[in-house]
């Protein structure tokens, strides 16, 4: 992979949605670390019932980093790479669905963010990524 825009696009090909999801996970993790959880993150309400804010941030960063590593090393881990991507996408789908649920149950006056559609779309795209990572892993000897 060359570090030009064209090289990056050729390397990630149609996996760019997974790269975007991994980046968003990393970004959310960094944001929670930068502005810890007592801040008004309604999307995390349901997750915070069971796990602490630090653990949520660690989970996002770990999940995002592992997915990104699998995507960058695409084709070099033919055995484990697609599984890592697939399991990462499933974990992502779980997180996005819980965040979506947290947002849609909020009363109208508390619903100040526009993230609910993003979370719903990410949930669906992640489920499709689970399929794609495993079903098309032999094309050109790499996960497509």
């Amino acid at each position: 992979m060359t570090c030009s825009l064209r090289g990056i696009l050729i390397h990630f090909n149609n996996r760019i949605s997974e790269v975007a999801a991994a980046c968003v996970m990393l970004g959310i993790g960094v944001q929670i670390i930068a502005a810890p959880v007592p801040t008004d993150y309604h999307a995390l309400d349901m997750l915070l019932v069971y796990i602490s804010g630090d653990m949520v941030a660690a989970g996002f960063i770990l999940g995002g980093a592992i997915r990104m590593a699998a995507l960058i090393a695409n084709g070099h881990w033919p055995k484990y790479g697609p599984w890592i991507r697939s399991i990462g996408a499933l974990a992502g789908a779980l997180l996005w669905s819980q965040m979506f649920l947290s947002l849609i149950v909020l009363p109208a006056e508390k619903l100040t963010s526009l993230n609910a559609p993003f979370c719903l779309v990410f949930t669906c795209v992640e489920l499709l990524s689970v399929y794609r990572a495993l079903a098309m892993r032999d094309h050109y000897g790499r996960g497509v």
Partner: protein
Amino acid sequence: MEGASEKAFGALGQFPIIQAAVAILILLGGVYMIFKAYMDKSKGPDPMPQWLMMGPLHDMMEAVHDIAEESRKSNDLLKECRDALLACKSALELIRNESRLR
């Protein structure tokens, strides 16, 4: 029994149940996708989608363009060589004619 279950659900609240139901639904969806991926893969490779070929085709077009450009440069160089050789030929002819006159 009904009273006990009502109390249990009441203590738990309704939302964790919905939350767990959604999580289970997503997990089942994911597991279904994994199984479907395996079943689809065992059918053998699908015919290559056309959009996957656009990258190599684009690369090929770029390579053809580069080759054409190189050929044009080579052609220009050959023309310059020909001109130089013609100039040399003329000079040699002039020298020969000069030497004959003497």
